[in-house]
């Protein structure tokens, strides 16, 4: 579905992403794990068009989207849940969700998706009139995910959904991710919480300072000694 080939990204003179290639098949959960500053977030932002690449190609279902704008990519079905949630904090929960469907004009279908999101995250339905900034961290994460689902994505890019959440909530968020995937949305997940990510991922890529050092199925990497040492704590 998504194919990144020989991607290079620079921040000024800093070569942040050094020729990586990633493939995500339809229906999969693929995760990118690695330490701080490895380039995971940058890779994800390049996929959703928030960051310009220096060289390489990105294709979605065989279509070249390397130079498409972020809006066009949302239209084509890529949705991005940014790191740190980044909800519109003075707007209400409902307004946040409506903005998720900003590029859509099919009102009746939007209404359907809205009730689907409320069903998945009942807490959002309870708080729909509340300013989004007053939600707790976990609720904000749910809102950010709900907002991304409102564009009816084929590929959902999640950037550190577990960041700053209590362990119980992390489990809940990952259950939801798995459930979204089972309902037919392909997922590209960037995580520092390697053990959680590997548990739900079909395949995983390990990034270190801008390169991919290891790849395999989630189960394989869980067993790998290197991974255990570096990311799983023994």
């Amino acid at each position: 579905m998504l194919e990144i080939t020989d991607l290079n990204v620079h921040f000024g003179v800093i070569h942040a992403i050094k020729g990586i290639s990633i493939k995500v098949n339809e229906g999969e959960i693929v995760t990118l794990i690695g330490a701080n500053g490895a380039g995971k977030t940058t890779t994800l932002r390049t996929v959703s068009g928030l960051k310009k690449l220096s060289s390489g190609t990105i294709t979605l279902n065989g279509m070249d989207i390397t130079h498409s704008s972020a809006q066009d990519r949302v239209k084509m079905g890529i949705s991005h849940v940014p790191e740190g949630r980044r909800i519109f904090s003075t707007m209400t929960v409902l307004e946040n969700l409506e903005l998720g469907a900003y590029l859509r004009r099919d009102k009746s279908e939007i209404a359907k998706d809205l009730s689907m999101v409320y069903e998945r995250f009942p807490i959002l339905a309870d708080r729909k009139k509340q300013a989004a900034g007053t939600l707790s961290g976990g609720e904000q994460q749910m809102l950010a995910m709900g907002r991304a689902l409102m564009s009816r994505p084929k590929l959902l890019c999640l950037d550190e959904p577990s960041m700053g959440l209590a362990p119980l909530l992390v489990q809940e968020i990952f259950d939801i991710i798995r459930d979204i995937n089972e309902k037919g949305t392909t997922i590209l997940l960037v995580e520092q919480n390697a053990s959680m990510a590997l548990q739900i991922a079909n395949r995983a890529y390990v990034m270190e300072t801008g390169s991919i050092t290891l790849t395999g199925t989630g189960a394989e990497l869980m067993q790998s000694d290197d991974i255990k040492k570096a990311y799983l704590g023994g």
Partner: protein
Amino acid sequence: MQKLLGSNFLKKAIFLAATFGLVQLLIVTGVINPFIMDTLTTICINIILAVSLNLITGFTGQFSLGHAGFMSIGAYTCTIITLRVPTTLGFITGLLAGAILAALVGAVVGLPTLRLRGDYLAIATLGMAEIIRIIFLNLDITNGAAGLFNNNQYVNWFWLFLFTAGTVVLISNFIKSSHGRACISIREDEIAAEAVGINSTKYKVTAFVMGAFFAGIAGSMHSSYFYFIKPDLFGFLKSINILVIVVFGGLGSISGSIIAAILLALISTSLQSIPELQMVIYAAMLITIMLFRPQGLMGSKELSLSLFKKWSSLIHRKNGGEA
């Protein structure tokens, strides 16, 4: 058309017509003398300036210090045209030409500078306004530092009211539309706005150009009512004064801008009898109010009936609790 004017159309129309009629009556009966009329004109022009700057700074979150520059483009264009065509038609043509020219300059300046954020944008727009001022200072057609004298006053209460109400209605309906929602989302979080598919550059430039357009109108009215313009009137301090109104009323509140424009004009007019202390008291008042309401008079809320109901229920509850 209905969409452009928004909901509650009839209520608003009646309110606007009543306001217009009442003031017109007071003018005809002489209650509003020329001195009060000057203050009223200043208030109207400041409302246009503040509301249009609020669109750029308060709603879209782009910190601009160049509003006086756009205002001066409107003022000079309108004066130059009315000097050659001294009729009401000439004035309206000049006003529209001034607004369109200001909007064009807004687009030319906005496209490259709106990539900058925060303080960088403020400095860039400040520089732009200074460049415009220096150009007017050196052109022959603008008569340099001596300025232009326009001996016909075409702005009367009708035009003042028409353009002030028009600006407020158009901008507040823009804010309520999906475009306005997009602008607010950029202020809230530009990356998130991009992530949901909002073209942030497009909306930043749109807000900037719209703001410039209305500032041009305000400038035209200023030039036509107060007869005289010179480049010094549109310096850095003027931009700051407009920003003060916006911040004072509340970033992101149109009714806040309107209330602040009225209040500040009344304060500075009432202090005119003590010129030595005028600016000192004015500044002290601003500092006091900003200390106690840093979010501005209205914050980002709008004055509405439901807000009154909320207040009254709050007061009611408080009284009930004490009893």
